[in-house]
């Protein structure tokens, strides 16, 4: 049973490849679940084996007292096994739940296969509205999955105080459209949660606990996430003026990275001095207040080399009076305060809140690649591709509005007959329904490339009106008929109206065209 393409849409297998993340995520979850189960089983069986050996030793005494001891041991064993059974039940349940996701998704794509192959059995497939509608509906669900994905990734997780529950509009939408099994919103929500706490609350705890959970994978991909997270923790401690904890954090979490991130570590230790300097300059340094870049900048602290040197060493910066090439004795001193060391802007950069979004991007990158999730929101990718393949040279053409009285399109109100006529004719134009030209998408589509065409796509029976517009003659007559029927305008027989400039012409004045 071969499948047929009705809209020139790709085959089912291509759809599967396009949506590999719908299968990759559950596989990752499955693999985690299985590994955990396996590890526990090995641990428990080993333990039990030892337990039985001890039991056997006890039995060897072959007296009642030891048998009583063995009885107690067996009791212990039963408790253990009971515990094990419960554990296995939980694991089997989640195992099945994950498999169920794959099952549901396979069913979803199988539905597409059914629609496409059934269509092939009926020879009149082009005109079969039933199949076409089914396919359209399937693609509407497909679009809804993309929307659910987008909303789950990007919309905030909100808290409902009445029901005491957290909710996210993506999940609400997926449940409303009964698509919740077709997407791993739990995984996306986890990323969203960590991301939100980073960006909005400047809270590192969720990120650090995620890093700890997935240390193995992260080390394997030599991710810098842990270092950056700990560096941020250190910076935040410094900002809060908590030097003791900052130093502990530095020693415990940052030092292990001395090989890979030596420059960063140097910068970090410099920051400690820098921040102390800034704090000392505070008029009344209350220990509770936090420092941030704006603060520091607004204080207009002396930031030039001379002043800082003066501050730390209580003497003037040694001057290079002679030519540096000949003056070799002073060389050491001047290198000490090389221009690089005096660049205090880089400390400000460390303190900047911008770092949170850098950290967030790093996290998302690691998180997404771990689950095989695309880095960009799939919806946006589809939109970019779709817009470019739809966008014609005629799109976003401002000349349309100029031809009519300025602004009538938007403000045209059915106050009078002319208004009605304008509305009616305007909406008979196909371009009014172009998605690329819609008000919503206009700003999005503006900068994207046009589609490439190698063939004209025009219409049947093209006729040229004296004003230079070319229409499908049959449709123009049909429009004239509809206008007359609705009593919008009185046209004599043989008269037609141009819906763009609303001028009336005689049909006999039109010329048949031969565009190729």
């Amino acid at each position, binding site marked *: 049973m071969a499948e047929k393409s009705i*809209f020139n849409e790709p085959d089912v*297998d291509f759809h599967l490849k*396009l949506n*590999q993340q719908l299968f990759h995520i559950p*596989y990752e979850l499955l693999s985690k679940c*299985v*590994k955990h189960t396996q590890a526990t089983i090995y641990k428990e069986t080993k333990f039990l084996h030892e337990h*039985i050996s001890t039991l056997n030793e006890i039995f060897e005494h072959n007296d*009642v007292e030891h048998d009583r001891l063995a*009885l107690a041991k067996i009791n212990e064993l039963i408790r253990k*096994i*009971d515990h094990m059974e419960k554990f*296995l039940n939980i694991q*089997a349940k989640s*195992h099945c739940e994950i*498999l169920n996701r794959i099952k549901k998704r*396979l069913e979803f794509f199988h539905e597409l296969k059914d629609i496409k192959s059934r269509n092939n059995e009926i020879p009149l497939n082009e005109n079969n509205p039933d199949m076409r509608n089914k396919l359209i509906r399937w693609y509407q669900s497909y*679009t809804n999955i993309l*929307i659910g994905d*987008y909303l789950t990734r990007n919309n905030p997780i909100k808290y409902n105080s009445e029901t005491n529950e957290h909710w996210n509009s993506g999940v609400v*939408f997926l449940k*409303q*459209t009964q698509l919740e099994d077709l997407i791993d919103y739990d995984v996306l929500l986890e990323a969203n949660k960590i991301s939100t706490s980073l960006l909005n609350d400047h809270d590192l705890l969720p990120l650090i606990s995620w890093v700890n959970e997935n240390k193995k994978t992260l080390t394997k991909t030599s991710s810098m996430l842990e270092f950056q997270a700990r560096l941020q923790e250190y910076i935040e401690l410094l900002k809060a003026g908590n030097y003791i904890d900052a130093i502990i954090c530095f020693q415990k979490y940052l030092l292990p990275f001395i090989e890979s991130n030596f420059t960063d570590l140097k910068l970090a230790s410099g920051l400690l001095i820098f921040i102390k300097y800034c704090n000392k300059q505070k008029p009344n340094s209350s220990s509770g207040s936090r420092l941030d870049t704006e603060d520091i900048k607004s204080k207009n602290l002396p930031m030039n080399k001379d002043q800082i040197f003066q501050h730390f060493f209580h003497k003037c910066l040694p001057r290079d009076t002679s030519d540096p090439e000949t003056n070799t004795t002073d060389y050491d001193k001047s290198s000490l305060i090389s221009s690089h060391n005096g660049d205090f802007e880089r400390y400000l950069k460390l303190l900047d809140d911008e770092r949170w979004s850098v950290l967030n991007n790093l996290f998302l990158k690691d998180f997404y690649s771990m689950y095989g999730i695309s880095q960009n929101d*799939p919806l946006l990718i*589809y939109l*970019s*591709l*779709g*817009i*470019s*393949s*739809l966008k*014609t040279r*005629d799109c976003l053409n401002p000349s349309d509005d100029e031809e009519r009285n300025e602004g009538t399109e938007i403000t045209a109100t*059915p106050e009078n*007959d002319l208004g009605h006529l304008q509305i009616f004719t305007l*909406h008979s134009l196909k371009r009014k*329904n172009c*998605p690329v030209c*819609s008000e919503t*998408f206009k*700003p*999005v589509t503006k*900068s*994207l*490339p046009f589609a490439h065409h*190698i*063939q*004209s*796509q025009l219409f049947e029976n093209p006729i*040229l009106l004296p004003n230079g*517009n070319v*229409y499908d003659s049959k449709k123009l007559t049909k*429009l004239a008929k509809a206008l007359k029927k609705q009593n919008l305008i009185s046209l004599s027989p043989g008269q037609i109206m141009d*819906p763009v400039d609303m001028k009336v012409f005689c049909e006999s004045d039109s*010329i048949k*065209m*031969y*565009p*190729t």
Partner: protein
Amino acid sequence: MSELLDSFETEFSKFYTDSSLEETNLHKCIEHTHEFKNQLKKLKAHLNKHIQESEPETYNNLDDKEKQKFRRKRELIIEKLNKSQRQWDHSVKKQIKHVSQQSNRFNKTTLNKLKEFDIDSVYINKLPKGTMNNVDEAIGYHVLRYSIDNMPLENKDDAFKYLKDVYGITNKESTEFIDMGQIVHDLKKGDTESCLKWCSQEMDSLSSNHAALSSLKFELYTLSAMQSVMRGNPVEVYHQMTQQAPLDCFKHREKELIRNVVPLLTKSLIGQPVEGIDSKVDEELKKCVSLFIKEYCSAKHIFFNSPLFLIVLSGLISFQFFIKYKTIRELAHVDWTTKDELPFDVKLPDFLTHFHPIFICPVLKEETTTENPPYSLACHHVISKKALDRLSKNGTITFKCPYCPVNTSMSSTQKVRFVML
């Protein structure tokens, strides 16, 4: 092609131990663990009994043969204990190994085949950063258009609040859709009143499509008649058809009337049951709902198909072309040539492309634009302005049409514009 899907399904079924895809090897693990537990409990009871019987007053009363038997019993308990532990150990390890192997095999044989390309790799023309609000707006429209009847709409203010809280949709956007959703709700409840009322109101407007509205009205009356038939009340049916439905609705529709409605009415009047009336009513209801939505959207001048959906569908269709181009480009080391135009042709179905005319100049093989518009020649063949300038040496000479023998001078050319109706 769906070979991949087929093999996928086959490989997936191996996760299960039964054909109805419910039991896995982990369930076997549980079973065996449970058995082991029961076995242990039994052995514990035996041992307990044995200990009790080992009390000297009982034990000493036994003769030698019985004593031997008694000892043998104890040995048996120990033996069984060891044996069942070994069995359980072997079984759970085997099962979990199986589970783990299956999951690995699934990854290797199936998932790896899916990894042919990375969807990020074709996202070359990024959507402008500042336009994410527009994307949200488009999502809002899509949700309103297709999912409004899944929402709680009983109270208009609550509906406004709900849409705003959940989807960030403003009242201005949602007003028209809430009205639409409420009428759809009514229809689904079997109440055609509100929909008929809407039709009548729309009919009063000059710019509405009267023909379409009257055919919607006809379907609505048909629906309520069918619903009465379903309720098995011929008097009600008669009353509806003669009193409530205005006659002009049935004008010019005799054929449909005879084919769809009359048989039902007749059967109902003579008291015969109508076969499959439920599904017929359901079908008619769906027809009414989709007709109504179509008319509603056209009356309010709102998109019948959400722009987001049309764009996503086009994106999906064009995906294969983008991937193919990417592969070729990597092989041939050529780069994306033009910035403002895609380097390849995407064939989209007519209903996605019929919004704008596309004219390719037959001389230059280039698409005409506002800067290079199409011009009609004396013979009414059409070429682009650039081609015209070239052929006429900037309007200085008359030239022969590239398609026919007719000569054209600059004065007989005319700028034209194609418009799709």
